[in-house]
């Protein structure tokens, strides 16, 4: 059989079964043992599975829901469906029944492949909202024995049924080959529903040929081969997992290992030793915190070694990784550190063999980012969107910086709109939102660029900076771009600053409130002989103000280094007399500042920032933990940063 073009994922499977027939394609830990399947075995399973599905009624163009955690048979469900020309629709395993009902109904899925009883129960609960759904097939039979099996089948049964049919009538082989070749580059290969923050989820239609083209670029970019290894632990329905463990694995031919259970991911990482890893910033933060806590409990010698070598890595590690010149003795000490601390640490985290690691999704603190790089983990940042499938910008090995998401990916066209919004065309870009022409039109510009809703700029080195959601970006009166979250994040990266709130939209210059971080600043106060009796007193101390002023100046220098942000330097700031608190409505429950609310509540302070006064008296009502209310009265000092210099800089901005 000739498969022709490499334009669908099942064709890549068949190709891999020829190229890498004996090499591992999937592994799954079950009953304490890693079980593996070679590419040739996976092809056989998927052929039988596809035939079984077609005997169950699945046809070209049908939608096929896939719900569960990372298990080989669920990944094969994508392949088997695509083999027949059906469109897989993955749904988050932790979606509540209502959301699941919406997607099943909107996509009109005819079949659903699910992991276990939990998902079957949810589907049964919303079955009246999914009238097109004819049958549900499951991977794990436990607890399903007493269910009505009229419309419920085990995936294993479907595969066995296909295998039996193939054995009885070899003509099915030719039929399957025909189905495979009938697939084309223009097929919609998957519909990924994105959970919008507002409104109903939208089904992003990804096109087979475009997806393979985009993924091939990324494979070449990081030089992935069939010898790489990944552990699949991200949600199956998330575009990142689909890209990394399904698409990239099929294009490069590397092996995907599925963990024993979601709780054993860390342990399974150590066993498999992946060479390629993706984690959102939060995961890296959790791992570092866990390490720090465990080191604090370690013996004195271990603790001293850890502290000494981590300090050395902080100084030279990144330079060594970036192949910058480093004195020979530092290099030697780093090599010793590798042996004693860095490698054992990476081993404990499961990063021993990681060659390429990515983080994306939100801003990662530069300290956190450089910690991992300094111990020799090649951690990089990328920026992408489901609609782009997926990468818009990504850092190459020699172009890693903490504050950007890297240069553009090959064949991505990008422009910055009038209002600062990032707009692009990408090789993998989506076809549209499934059955939602209105939303599709909203997401695109008339000339075919996709709107990200993110504000950003390209710096002189060609790196993309993402600064905020574009709707939150304002302008100063002189027209300079003002991105509050970008400034606030830069401030918050200083451990002494817990929260920051920047103002400036429609004003002459930028000002901000800062909140001290009590733990960090009280630690500093102790070391520097600053005495205080309360949070308020510490926050109002002039040496603390001076300390924070240094931080603000450092942020200003940073902002000044890029023309796009140079106009938004902070002229005046004050240290708030009370900690911003979700109980007082100043933060959301997820700890995001509610800028507008704060501006109203502290209107007097904001007015003062934009006047000539140096101190303001303010009384603020607060809610205590036990529900009582009280008032905090304070005299807040305003810090003016080198007004003369600021004025002259404003002129040239």
């Amino acid at each position, binding site marked *: 059989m000739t498969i022709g073009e490499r334009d669908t994922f099942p064709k890549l499977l068949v190709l891999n079964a020829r190229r890498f027939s004996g090499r591992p394609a999937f592994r799954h830990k*079950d*009953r*304490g*043992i890693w079980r593996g399947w070679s590419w040739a075995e996976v092809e056989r399973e998927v052929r039988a599975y596809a035939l079984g599905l077609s005997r169950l009624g699945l046809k070209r163009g049908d939608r096929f829901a896939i719900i569960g955690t990372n298990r080989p048979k669920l990944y094969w469900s994508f392949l088997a469906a695509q083999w027949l020309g059906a469109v897989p629709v993955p749904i988050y395993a932790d979606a509540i029944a209502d959301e699941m009902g919406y997607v099943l109904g909107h996509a009109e899925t005819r079949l659903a492949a699910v992991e276990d009883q939990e998902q079957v129960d949810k589907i049964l609960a919303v079955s009246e909202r999914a009238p097109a759904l004819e049958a549900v097939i499951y991977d794990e039979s*436990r*607890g399903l*024995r*007493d269910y009505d099996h009229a419309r419920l089948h085990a995936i294993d049964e479907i595969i066995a049924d296909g295998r039996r049919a193939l054995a009885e009538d070899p003509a099915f082989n030719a039929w399957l080959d025909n189905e495979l070749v009938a697939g084309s580059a223009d097929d919609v290969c998957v519909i990924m529903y994105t959970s919008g923050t507002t409104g109903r989820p939208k089904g992003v239609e990804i096109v087979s040929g475009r997806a393979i083209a985009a993924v091939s670029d990324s494979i070449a970019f990081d030089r992935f081969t069939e010898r790489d290894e990944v552990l699949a632990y991200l949600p199956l329905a998330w575009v990142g997992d689909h890209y990394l463990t399904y698409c990239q694995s099929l294009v490069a031919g590397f092996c995907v290992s599925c963990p*024993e*259970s979601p*709780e*054993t991911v860390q*342990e399974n990482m150590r066993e498999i030793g992946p060479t390629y890893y993706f984690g959102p910033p939060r995961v890296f933060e959790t791992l570092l915190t866990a390490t720090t806590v465990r080191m604090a409990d370690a013996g004195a010698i271990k603790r001293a070694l850890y502290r000494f070598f981590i300090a050395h890595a902080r100084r030279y590690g990144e330079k060594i990784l970036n192949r910058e010149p480093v004195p020979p003795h530092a290099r030697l000490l780093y090599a010793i550190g590798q042996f004693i601390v860095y490698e054992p640490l990476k081993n404990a985290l499961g990063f021993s063999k990681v060659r390429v690691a990515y983080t994306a999704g939100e801003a990662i603190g530069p300290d956190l980012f450089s910690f991992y790089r300094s111990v020799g983990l090649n951690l990089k940042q990328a920026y992408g969107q489901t609609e782009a499938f997926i990468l818009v910008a990504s850092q190459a090995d020699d172009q890693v910086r903490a504050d950007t998401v890297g240069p553009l990916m090959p064949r991505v066209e990008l422009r910055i709109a009038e209002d600062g919004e990032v707009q692009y065309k990408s090789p993998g870009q989506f076809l549209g939102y499934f059955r939602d022409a209105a939303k599709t039109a909203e997401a695109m510009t008339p000339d075919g660029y996709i709107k990200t809703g993110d504000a950003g700029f390209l710096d002189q080195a060609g790196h993309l900076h993402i600064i905020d959601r574009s709707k939150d970006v304002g302008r100063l009166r002189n027209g300079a771009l003002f991105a509050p979250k970008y400034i606030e994040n830069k401030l918050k990266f200083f451990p002494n600053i817990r929260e920051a709130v920047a103002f400036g939209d429609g004003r002459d210059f930028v000002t901000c409130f800062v909140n001290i971080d009590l733990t960090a600043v009280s630690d500093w106060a102790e070391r520097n002989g600053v005495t205080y009796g309360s949070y308020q007193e510490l926050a109002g101390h002039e040496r603390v103000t001076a300390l924070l002023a240094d931080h603000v100046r450092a942020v200003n220098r940073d902002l000044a280094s890029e023309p796009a942000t140079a106009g938004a330097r902070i002229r005046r700031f004050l240290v708030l007399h009370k900690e911003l608190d979700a109980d007082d409505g100043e933060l959301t429950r997820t700890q995001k500042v509610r800028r507008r609310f704060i501006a109203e509540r502290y209107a007097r302070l904001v007015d003062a920032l934009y006047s000539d006064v140096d101190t303001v008296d303010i009384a603020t009502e607060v809610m205590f933990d036990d529900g009582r209310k009280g008032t905090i009265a304070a005299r807040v000092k305003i810090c003016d940063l080198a007004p003369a210099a600021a004025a002259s800089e404003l002129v040239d901005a």
Partner: protein
Amino acid sequence: MTEAAAGDTLLAVEGISLQFGGVTALSDVSFDIKRGEIRAIIGPNGAGKTSMLNVINGFYHPQRGAIRFRGRDFSRMHPGFAARNGIARTFQNVALFRGMTTLDNLMTGRALKMHRGFLWQLLRYGPAMDEEIVHRRVVEDIIDFLEIEAIRRVPVGRLPYGLQKRVELGRALAMEPELLLLDEPMTGMNLEEKEDMCRFILEVNVQFGTTIALIEHDMGVVMDLSNRVVVLDYGRKIADDVPAAVKQDAAVIAAYLGVAA
């Protein structure tokens, strides 16, 4: 499963009386446990529930009465005999080997089924290894069943109480019992852990056909799980019926609320 069909009497106690010195723990208690059912034993503190379980698996020897198990009469049971003949139990206060891992604790549940001698075991070679693989497979099925993969290698002393209870259930299951005695399997658990435990008990009953006798304080749990309930008070049986009927029983209400019926 074995010789008889579901619904037959698997075990019956007849006229059991148990005294410690002058204290009467049980007096003239009779009831039966049918094959395949979940049988609850309830009663206020000190009613003799745990004593009853201890009589059934031979920890205590009653002064009077008989135990009928699989059609054979015994005036007293012995723990070893009970264990070899398919009676497994868990304890009110977890009784695991705290320094050993979850896996090793479960493997001890297989000890009675291992036949190779001490020296073979020591060698971990040949027949002893083959035997260990067989038993390990059974234990791994239980680990999968109870969803405790993540704590396979953790010493049980470091586990939270709810998980220790689950491991103890696992060890009892490793014996592949015909009759499982559970002494307050939900004490000290939060709501979520209780729900998990209920699910496991039901699944053991349905999937493996294991007959279960359980002592439990949580009335909601008892009423949901059990097919029949026997109620003890001061060592006497005061009621024996389906949960709905027991709930309405005047003597039971009096025993629990302490008012005259």
